[in-house]
């Protein structure tokens, strides 16, 4: 057996005999089990509720009876963000962004704007999820596992004996890293086995088509993240004169990485790029619709201009003589203008979110925790980008639904005939049931290039430091 494996084996033997490590490992396994169980329960409950609500909602839409299309447009419908199987692992922002939205004419009901009322969603965390255990608690276990990696050898004098056997620093470092990773694998593999079994019994709605690829990416990024923590802890231990110093340094880094920097960056994000209040946001949209963008084109003028255009185009002198119901045309035009206004304000809001998120992304160069947190949420389809994507799809669906109602009204009814004209199930059927598919894993990862780059940088820097320290000859005294 070579030196690296011998050192790894010895390290594992010693770690297993340390009660603190065994206790921490049991705690982590317990927390992972609880997180998985609660995740499974929540997933099943929400999935069942959503599926039931979806079916009821669809039936209600189809069975709403004969009515005027505009009444149907206001009768509206609900659409639901499907609960994805990966949300078992990482709840992300799902709890805060909501899972359903009511679609009706004229209004964009925004479930994802709730954070605008209070705080940026970036700072609202705290539920026990498996992702949280991996992101925050396992690094803590790594610290307790590895802070003595070199200090104990040095303090006990065994380092001299090791070096006197002709073992290089490089072999010692590799051996210890292999050992800690093996211990971590022993702790997390049962979790993955159970998660895999659960995933086979769960029938997902197919909202994530490339779930296997996402799981693979998740495994890779988490492996890199934990490897960074292992290597960093070993390096700190190598640089520290005593175990106490190493532990203090590592715990300080852990608090900075997982609590202080993420909170600070979230607060910075809010301070630099404040979100408008919900009230102001809505009022501004309504004002711009009423008075026109920039106050130059009020609603009455727009409608008069539209009427004029239609009369000219059809060469008639009264809207009653038009071959279609002008009311439907007017409503659709109002809808189109409202959509234009909404898009402008929505884009501004998304820009603010993106600016806030950019601070979080760039801060991942200071703490790898932010990198893994953002990537993990992204791959689990529980992040802000997925929410925004879902919002876009639902808004397109809403627009299409309203357009169908307005065009039916324009084409099949006469001006002034509001209560007389009634559409039936055949029209309702033309509105297809809502299905949502997330972006592909590649599209998601493209949105987290900064985080991926930061993880690579962290890995490279730490392995360079370890390599440099191992080759820099140091007196073993």
């Amino acid at each position, binding site marked *: 057996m070579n030196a690296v494996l011998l050192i790894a084996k010895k390290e594992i033997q*010693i770690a297993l005999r340390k009660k603190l490590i065994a206790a921490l490992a049991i705690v982590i396994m317990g927390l992972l089990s609880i997180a998985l169980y609660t995740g499974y329960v929540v997933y099943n409950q929400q999935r069942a509720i959503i599926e039931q609500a979806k079916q009821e909602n669809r039936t209600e839409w189809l069975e709403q009876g004969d009515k005027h299309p505009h009444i149907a447009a206001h009768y509206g419908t609900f659409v639901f963000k499907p609960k994805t199987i990966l949300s078992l692992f990482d709840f992300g922002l799902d709890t805060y962004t909501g899972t359903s939205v009511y679609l009706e004419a004229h209004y964009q009901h925004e479930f994802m704007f709730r954070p605008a009322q209070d705080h940026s969603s970036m700072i609202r965390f705290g539920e026990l999820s498996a992702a949280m255990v991996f992101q925050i608690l396992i690094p803590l276990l790594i610290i307790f596992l590895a802070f003595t990696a070199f200090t104990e050898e040095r303090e006990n004098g*065994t380092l001299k004996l090791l070096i006197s056997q002709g073992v290089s620093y490089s072999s010692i470092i590799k051996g210890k890293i292999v050992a800690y990773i093996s211990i971590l694998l022993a702790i997390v593999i049962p979790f993955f086995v159970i998660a895999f079994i659960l995933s086979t019994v769960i029938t997902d709605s197919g909202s994530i088509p490339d779930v296997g690829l996402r799981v693979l990416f998740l495994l890779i990024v988490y492996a890199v993240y934990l490897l960074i923590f292992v290597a960093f802890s070993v390096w700190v231990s190598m640089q520290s004169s005593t175990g106490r110093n190493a532990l203090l340094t590592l715990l300080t880094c852990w608090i900075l990485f997982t609590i202080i920097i993420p909170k600070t960056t979230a607060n910075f994000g809010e301070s630099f790029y404040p979100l408008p209040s919900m009230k102001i946001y809505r009022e501004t949209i309504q004002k711009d619709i009423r008075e026109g963008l920039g106050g130059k084109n009020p609603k009455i003028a727009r409608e008069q201009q539209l009427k004029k255009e239609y009369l000219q185009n059809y060469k008639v002198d009264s809207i009653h003589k038009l071959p279609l119901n002008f009311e439907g045309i007017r409503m659709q035009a109002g809808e189109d203008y409202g959509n234009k206004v909404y898009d402008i304000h929505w884009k501004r809001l998304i820009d603010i979110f993106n600016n806030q998120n950019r601070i979080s992304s760039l801060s991942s160069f200071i703490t790898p925790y932010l990198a893994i947190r953002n990537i993990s949420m992204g791959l689990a389809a529980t992040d802000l980008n997925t929410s925004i994507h879902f919002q876009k799809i639902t808004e397109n669906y809403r627009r299409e639904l309203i357009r169908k109602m307005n065009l039916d009204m324009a084409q099949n009814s006469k001006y002034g005939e509001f209560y007389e004209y009634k559409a039936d199930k055949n029209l309702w059927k033309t509105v297809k049931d809502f299905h949502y598919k997330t972006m592909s894993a590649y599209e998601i990862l493209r949105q987290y290039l900064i985080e991926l780059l930061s993880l690579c940088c962290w890995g490279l820097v730490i392995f360079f430091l370890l390599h440099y320290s191992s080759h820099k000859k140091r*007196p073993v005294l």
Partner: protein
Amino acid sequence: MLEAIDLTKKYGDFTALKSLNLTIKEGEIFCLLGANGAGKSTTINLFLNFIDATHGKAMINNMDVAMHVKETKQLLSYIPENLMLYKNLTGLENLHFFCGLGGGHQNKSELEELLIQSGLQKDFTRKRVSSYSKGMRQKVGIALARARGAKVLLLDEPTSGLDPKASNEFSELLINMKEKGVTTLMATHDLFRAKDTGTHIGIMKEGVLLEKFESKDVSFQDLEKMYLKHMHN
């Protein structure tokens, strides 16, 4: 087997070892005597390549230890004043681990036999080292040297703090290894042990080897007088 050529170690302005020239032949036990700070441990550390020489060379089997790190380490075994082993492992596990690092392929029963031959009670071979006395740990060190088939032993005050019985047992083991051709360089404060165990003795003071001679040429009383004379000058 061991050779120091103009070996010097300086820490800033302080000279810990000054131009040491010394040759120790195969099968010899060379005991370095001297007070604290005389340069004994510095000499051992230079042969172990734990520290870099400021000037000169430390050679083992005609190889510069700084140039042939791996090859020279394979030849030697080191026992410090207080041999520290992994407390959570048993003596046998420690021996198995360190032997493996040195490329040894003995199985556990062979190593256990070696521990017993080195004076460790059988009951203790499978007990954790945290329950060992210093003497017991030193015996594991000797067992390690034997298991690895070390040609050179570098001992830094190995009997310091041992009770007379344990110290005597340790000396017997060294003599036994000498008879098998093992070359030993031992730093010690213990004049009696040096005279009793060593084939050669050197007296050091302030980084300088003042005198060296064969131990059979001096009586214990003469050695003591010589040592004290140098220490008082």
